[in-house]
């Protein structure tokens, strides 16, 4: 599903260079659930942005589903983000002027199908599945933190991507909400969706098949 070789990324800011990833190798097979831990500033979000085609590496190869993504142009990258990847961010961003259904159906705006009714039906189905069936016409700002994260998962699932990238989705949640979200990820894993989850919480990491620590720009294996 995912294979990277010698991935490098540095940020240049006013003459100073911050080297974040230094030759990172990673391989994830289809259907695997992989967790990545690491101290703050280690470059976990940077890695996820590269894998999520939101940014391009300075050097190295990145293959996604047998396609060499590191060679694609911006429009093709956008298409990959639209069809193949679902994101869940640490602080769930939403479009504040759309209701929850339209927010969950956001990927449809950039997808090939234009059947609005069908999009809404799918969004409603997903919201019901994450336990938000009673919040369909609410604005995102009217939701609690846990509800927002569950809605974000529903949105990530909308386009039926085979890969979900989650960047500290439980970072701002209490125990109960964390538990609900972890169950959700476990369900998705059951369904055969490949999941890459960044977390600080070793309890959360414990449900993954494999676990890595990002340190010094490379991944270290951790016993699961």
């Amino acid at each position: 599903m995912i294979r990277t070789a010698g991935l490098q990324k540095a940020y240049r800011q006013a003459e100073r260079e911050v080297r974040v990833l230094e030759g990172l190798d990673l391989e994830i097979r289809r259907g695997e659930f992989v967790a990545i831990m690491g101290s703050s500033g280690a470059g976990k979000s940077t890695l996820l942005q590269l894998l999520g085609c939101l940014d391009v590496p300075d050097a190295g190869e990145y293959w996604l589903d047998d396609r060499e993504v590191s060679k694609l142009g911006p429009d093709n990258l956008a298409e990959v983000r639209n069809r193949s990847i679902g994101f869940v961010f640490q602080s769930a961003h939403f479009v504040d002027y759309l209701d929850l259904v339209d927010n969950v159906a956001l990927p449809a705006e950039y997808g090939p199908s234009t059947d609005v009714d069908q999009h809404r039906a799918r969004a409603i189905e997903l919201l019901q599945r994450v336990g938000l069936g009673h919040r369909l016409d609410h604005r995102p700002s009217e939701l609690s933190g846990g509800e927002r994260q569950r809605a974000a998962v529903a949105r990530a699932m909308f386009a039926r991507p085979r890969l979900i990238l989650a960047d500290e989705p439980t970072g701002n949640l209490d125990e109960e909400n964390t538990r609900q979200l972890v169950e959700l990820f476990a369900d998705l894993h059951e369904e055969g969706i490949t999941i890459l989850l960044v977390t600080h919480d070793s309890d959360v990491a414990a449900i993954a098949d494999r676990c890595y620590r990002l340190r010094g720009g490379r991944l270290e294996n951790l016993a699961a």
Partner: protein
Amino acid sequence: MNRWRARVRSALQVWRHHRVQAVLAVLGVVAGVSGLVTVVAIGEGARREFNAAIGLMGGGTLVVRSSGAALPMERVAAVKRIFGRDLNQVVPVASAQTTAQSGSARVDGVRIVETARDYLAAQRLDIYDGRFISWYDQEYESRVCVLGWELGRQLFPRGGAVGQQVRLGDRVFLVVGWLAPMQRPDIELGAMELPELDQVAYVPLATDGLATSRASLDELILRFDDEADMIRASGAVQRILEYDAEGTTFEYVVPVEMLRQKFHLQTVVGLLLMGTTAVMLVVGGIGIMNTMLMTVLRRRPEIGLRMAFGARRRDIIEQFVTESALVAAFGGVMGLVVGAVIAQVVGWQLGWPVAIGLTAGLSGLLAALAVGVLAGAYPAIQAAAVQPIRTLNHG
């Protein structure tokens, strides 16, 4: 098509969420479009009346009028000979006032127009019943007459005027035709004589006519194909008519010119307003651009989010241009309403004809849309340049 419907739907939701901003953003456009609609409505109103009047009398018409001395008939013949090809009609006219009588009906102050066959076409008159003066009538100076609509009704209230006899002054004429009521423009046509209230009788120009002798006329209507022909010929016409005439000059009336004079003020006011309107539209565009730039700044997380879920640069540009165009169109519609009211009030206060129609509406809406698209382009490009990783990470 579907994609654009989605864009518009989304843009509607944005502005519904930010109503106050939308209204503030478009104030300038509202002012600009209402100005534009007013200008177009005034200009269009003037143009339509102008055209209606021209259609009625013909753009290539030149009226020569005697002031004192009558027009010598042989000179008229010379004009006819020289301009025969360009000239549609030369219509001699002499007129007088007298009393008309038929049986017990009697009408005073009837205008008698002594003229020729072509007068019917030159004045765009319509026959209601019977016929107009013919070549035969002209040649033999037949004692026939054609009644204007009103006179016919006064003399023959029960109808059936054609075939009856009327007494005009001290002579008896056979009625051969009755004219339909005249289509009259709302405006005063100046010196262009339109018979008053159709209370008129037309008779062939006669050597011993009621008005003048056949040797001279008091009015001559020259109809050229168009205005350019008429202007080109007018100098020569004047020289021919006034050749060796001592002191007797004639009055040359160009009805088109009189019309233009009449609408001169509208033209000037229109031009002035047009300049002001253009400035207001530019200011309106700046207002929208300003709002859009603030919007883009505020919505960077949203832009990053959309990109993360598959939006291309082009999608983002389309989104913000649509929002800008939509809010401008909304301002345009408000401007149409305000402009229509202003135009009505101006027309009513100054007595100007105004035409609030498709031209005014379309030009207002198109101007608003153009302003919206232009003003939205730069902010949209700014939006498309947002780096998603910077907006999504922490926040």
